[in-house]
């Protein structure tokens, strides 16, 4: 099937912009026009109906996306930025670390409104806040790269605020953790009932590094999120956690994908969902260990609270283990709230609604506590989510 978005529709727009990387954008568009939407037989895309995205009625360009970044280490060196854009449009580059160049990666580069690159120097501590707020229009394509140099410690909070109109989000975040650096990353995405969304977080880790990523996602009519981690050298630790709350007809497909590439690495994934009404969640947990590596410890867990008969949560673990000296585990649960706990809380004067809300907040409490968010930020998130529950 030929791609629905045709080259001519965007070429003039890109050529007339003052964007410093418009040649790369045009290259991305060229490649984009040669590929199709991901096919439904592809395991990553099997559970999502991409035909629901109304490409023909979306303008996608001329949108206003407000991005604020608080960091003293933002850099504008075109050669470094180009390198990361190239990673997203040319999979033959050695530095691509085998991240797939697909339809949405190319679309992201072709139509990106802005790209931000932050490079935290060696042995430095930094706290970074990134907010993307949709102001107007129907296509939002942010791209952020964070490089943490040797020995640095970085805490990052990314917030995405959607728009109350039909729109498409397509974002990329690269985290490149160099030797002995520590990164804690939180992404809070609040999408409206009208938005389609495709988000990628790509993590590349070097020796002795530690990366913790947390994704808290609500809303969106249809979307897919990727968390892809490539653990390249020895003695690396990666932790990926996530949460999706869906109601009405929200659909979210989260794919967490960890590839171990060396000895003595540890990774763990924990993903939780609460779905009600007709909401539908799909979790794909991929763990891969190649031949001839040893001392790898890797596990994943997925817990789902399903609060109505028509809501749905699916769990799909993919473990590809080619070495013998490794430990890999997975587990998944699905169920409703504990009726005895609801009764217990009601005997203490809480209404059924209050009891259920407290139990739901308890369900995600450990995830929130694991993050580096301040107590005020945690309270604000809980308050916001609590109103939706």
């Amino acid at each position, binding site marked *: 099937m030929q791609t629905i978005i045709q080259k001519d529709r965007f070429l003039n727009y890109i050529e007339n912009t003052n964007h410093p990387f418009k040649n790369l954008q045009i290259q991305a568009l060229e490649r984009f026009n040669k590929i199709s939407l991901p096919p439904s037989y592809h395991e990553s895309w099997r559970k999502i109906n991409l035909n629901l995205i109304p490409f023909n009625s979306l303008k996608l360009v001329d949108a206003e996306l407000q991005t604020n970044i608080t960091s003293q280490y933002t850099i504008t060196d075109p050669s470094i930025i180009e390198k990361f854009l190239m990673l997203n449009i040319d999979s033959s580059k050695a530095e691509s670390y085998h991240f797939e160049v697909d339809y949405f990666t190319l679309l992201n580069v072709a139509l990106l409104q802005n790209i931000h690159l932050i490079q935290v120097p060696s042995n430095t501590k930094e706290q970074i806040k990134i907010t993307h707020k949709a102001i107007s229009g129907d296509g939002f394509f942010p791209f952020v790269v964070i490089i943490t140099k040797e020995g640095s410690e970085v805490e990052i909070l990314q917030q995405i605020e959607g728009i109350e109109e039909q729109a498409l989000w397509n974002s990329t975040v690269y985290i490149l953790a160099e030797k002995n650096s520590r990164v804690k990353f939180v992404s809070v995405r609040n999408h409206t009932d009208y938005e389609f969304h495709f988000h990628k977080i790509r993590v590349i880790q070097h020796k002795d590094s530690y990366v913790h990523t947390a994704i808290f996602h609500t809303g969106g009519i249809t979307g897919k999120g990727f968390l892809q981690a490539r653990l390249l050298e020895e003695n690396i630790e990666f932790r990926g956690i996530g949460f999706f709350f869906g109601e009405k007809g929200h659909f979210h497909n989260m794919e967490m994908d960890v590839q171990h590439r060396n000895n003595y690495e540890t990774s763990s994934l924990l993903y939780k969902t609460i779905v009600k009404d007709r909401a539908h969640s799909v979790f794909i947990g991929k763990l891969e260990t190649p031949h001839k590596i040893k001392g790898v410890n890797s596990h994943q867990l997925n817990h789902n609270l399903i609060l109505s008969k028509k809501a749905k949560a699916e769990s799909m673990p993919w473990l590809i283990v080619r070495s013998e000296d490794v430990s890999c585990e997975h587990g998944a649960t699905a169920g409703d709230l504990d009726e005895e*706990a609801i*009764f217990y809380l009601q005997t203490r004067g809480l209404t059924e609604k209050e009891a259920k809300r*407290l139990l739901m907040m*308890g369900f995600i409490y450990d995830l929130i506590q694991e993050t580096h968010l301040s107590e005020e930020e945690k309270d604000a998130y809980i308050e916001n989510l609590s109103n939706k529950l």
Partner: protein
Amino acid sequence: MNYILELIDLHVEVEGKEIIKGINLQIPYGEIHAIMGPNGSGKSTLSYTLLGHPKYKVTKGDIKFEGESILNLTTDERARRGMFLSLQYPTQIPGVTTMNFLRNVIKSFYGDVPIRELREKVNSAFDKLQMNKDFLARYVNDGFSGGEKKRHEIVQMRLIQPKFAILDEIDSGLDIDALRIIAENIQEMKSPQRSMILITHYQRLLNYIEVDKVHIFMNGNIQFSGGKELALELEQKGYEQILSTVK
């Protein structure tokens, strides 16, 4: 006489099986009644029924609390009217810290209480039960020992100050010191405005608590009632002998 609780020909079914078979019971204000009986006789069913657990269906009769039928009230409405149930096996609530839980409990009875006042109330209740305040940061009943769970139930009773409490085997799984501390707290809460039902297997609890009546519960009904001395006699002779004497 004014009764805080009246059970009138109460019949209760669980999953289609009748467990409670026509109880009649009146508890005046200010009195503590003990209910004793063998396992499976329906004692815990009675306690769940009083608080309106959805699995326990009243098929006949009535429950009156302060003169009004409460059969149409939800569990939380009964609680806010002044009824309290300490469960035999208090439920664990992972992810909800004890402090957050107690804050919500107090809020449901007294509205928003300033954080300082809340802390003082909670600390005071913990002190009364000689309970370590480290538990406030732990999830509700999660990893608590049997004794800690029971102390925590009485902490809640102290904070709520109910008019009527049903304490279902509050003495089970307790060591000697914990039994004394819990019993002293219960005795201390006795007042002319507050009544209680103690469901227990053992007379030892009654060494600390002044009860007004003891009821022997078997086969889904009260078979015999008497004074405090009945508990001692029961422990010496057993249920069958006592009841055969009565018959």
